[in-house]
């Protein structure tokens, strides 16, 4: 007998705020995804690619020096080792697989700093799909290396000159194009946000992070960790790590947000981009401006599954400042020889705080990506 859905699963499955313009395309996508889930051969084929192309499983590294300094056991789930340098490829590979499985020849994606755009371009190249990536013109300029990478992978990069010329405008432009072209092109969405079925699809393709971590940590420690710590912007890396442990009440879940974009910590219920979730909003219900040194966390909403966990008391969240994140990045690099992304550095800072309150415990930190892309930001902030 199927169990009752949890409150967070119900929030993830809600579709009351799906824009009618997107409804036909989303319905078709959900049907394709469900067909894929029932197709064992297709799932096996994708699993094979995750191994042979993306480099999975990724390592679980015990951070011995941090453990000694902080007073506990610390493990790093190393998504920085995924091809492309971040967990984003898990999802892009899954969604591009799904696109060609459903018979599409093209994919459309939005990107902010460029990580999801690069991952989509990589996956599209692997499947022989034509990728169209929409990026705000300001971001194209700021992240010129990623723009070059996308083009090298054969993607067509469409700079968006509307509005503030950043992520939100890119999302809008890409979705508008998709509304008119959903017969020919799939839309590859980068996080566990947006309208149903995207939160469920993206979490499914990212849950490999936690599935692996669970096996790996049991093998080393003989049991489950006391806490999982992950950074949260939209929340794909956190949802991916947490899913395999969410039914184990002994495992604490800690979401580390950027203090200037902390929708789980400071947000309230509202609707954004086709979904009902915790949203940072002004008293007049406009979407609040956000800030983070880390582009990947600079988002005013959060995935509905994570919002449901927070509202249901299953997840704690903490707001990490830019400075605390930079300290985390430095400490991890110096002590463990791992240069993590600024996003992941928020989780490092959060884990340190958690172990200070829970000495002697074991935690797993999701290292969502590598930090090479952030060196400029780091040097600008810390003067190099």
């Amino acid at each position: 007998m199927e169990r009752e859905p949890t409150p967070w699963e119900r929030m993830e499955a809600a579709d009351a705020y799906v824009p009618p313009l997107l409804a036909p395309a989303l319905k078709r996508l959900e049907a394709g995804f469900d067909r894929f889930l029932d197709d064992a051969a297709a799932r096996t084929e994708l699993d094979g690619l995750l191994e042979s192309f993306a480099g999975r499983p990724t390592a679980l590294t015990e951070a011995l020096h941090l453990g000694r300094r902080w007073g506990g056991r610390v493990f790093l789930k190393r998504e920085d080792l995924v091809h492309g340098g971040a967990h984003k490829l898990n999802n892009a590979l899954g969604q591009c697989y799904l696109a060609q499985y459903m018979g599409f020849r093209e994919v459309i994606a939005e990107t902010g700093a460029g990580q999801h755009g690069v991952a989509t371009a990589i996956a599209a190249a692997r499947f022989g799909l034509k990728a169209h990536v929409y990026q705000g013109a300001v971001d194209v300029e700021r992240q010129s290396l990623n723009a070059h990478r996308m083009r090298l992978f054969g993607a067509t990069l469409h700079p968006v000159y509307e509005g503030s010329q950043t992520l939100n405008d890119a999302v809008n432009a890409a979705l508008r194009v998709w509304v008119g072209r959903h017969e020919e092109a799939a839309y590859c969405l980068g996080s566990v946000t947006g309208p149903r079925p995207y939160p469920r699809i993206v979490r499914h393709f990212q849950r490999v992070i936690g599935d692996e971590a669970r096996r790996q940590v049991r093998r080393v420690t003989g049991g489950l960790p006391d806490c999982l710590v992950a950074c949260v912007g939209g929340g794909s890396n956190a949802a991916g790590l947490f899913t395999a442990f969410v039914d184990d009440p002994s495992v604490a879940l800690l979401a580390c947000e950027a203090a200037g974009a902390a929708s789980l910590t400071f947000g309230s219920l509202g609707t954004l981009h086709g979904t009902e979730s915790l949203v940072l909003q002004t008293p007049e219900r406009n979407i609040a401006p956000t800030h983070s040194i880390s582009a990947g966390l600079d988002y005013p909403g959060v995935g509905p599954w994570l919002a449901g966990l927070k509202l249901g008391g299953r997840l704690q969240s903490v707001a990490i400042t830019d400075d605390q994140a930079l300290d985390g990045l430095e400490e991890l690099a110096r002590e463990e020889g791992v240069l993590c992304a600024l996003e992941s550095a928020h989780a490092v800072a959060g884990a340190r705080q958690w172990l200070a309150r829970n000495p002697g415990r074991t935690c797993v930190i999701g290292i969502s990506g590598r930090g090479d892309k952030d060196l400029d930001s780091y040097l600008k902030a810390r003067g190099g």
Partner: protein
Amino acid sequence: MGVGIYFTLLDFGLPASLAVLQAAARAGASLLEVGLPFSDPLLDGPVIQAGHRRALAGGEVPWADICDAVGEVRRTCGAARVSVMTASQLLYDPIRAARLPPVDGILVTDIAWDRPSPVMLTSPRVWFLSQGVVLAAPLPPPPEPVSMVYLTRVQGITGADQAAADTTAQAVRRVRSQTPVDVWLGFGASTRADLAAADAAGATGVVIGSAFVSAMELRARELGSGTPDAVRARVLAEAAGAWVDALVRP
């Protein structure tokens, strides 16, 4: 054949936006679609997005003032029907939503088309349908009482240069078989030819957004940013009246 005009409240300032809507009604627009300014309009084209940004450029306006302005449009725009077009986020809080004065319809752009509104509506719902939805499968009746239907003319987004699809007549027929209310076509209409095509397709009228807002924007740019509010309101009202008049005059 009815002409509906979309304009964002507070675009070019409160006095100008009210004057534009009033002038459009005087010139013969039979539906005024009043957009409520929002920071993150989804799926609107660049012209309408820019209108929202201009409306909020001077800072946020209290909800009570927005509600007052909607009420004033209703009171001062004569025989035209008035509907409010908004994102669900602005009506999410039922205490705020309850303050919106009664109009002829409320169109929420991001709620599921096939079930009752999840947010409180103080006026009857405008049933927002895309042709993709209408043509994909047999259309059920509206999920709750509706005062009119807003049907996207082509499968696409707001913008003035989209080609008409020959499926429109079929979509209008399907909608009319399920509800007796007015059926307005939106997205991409801007010319007399569009009006004639909508007429031939059996629609009540077309709602014109981007082309009209572009014309107002052009006129406002000619005025320059230092123009006093009252002057801008008068000049834009003249431009709005002339624009609508040119479209509706036989």
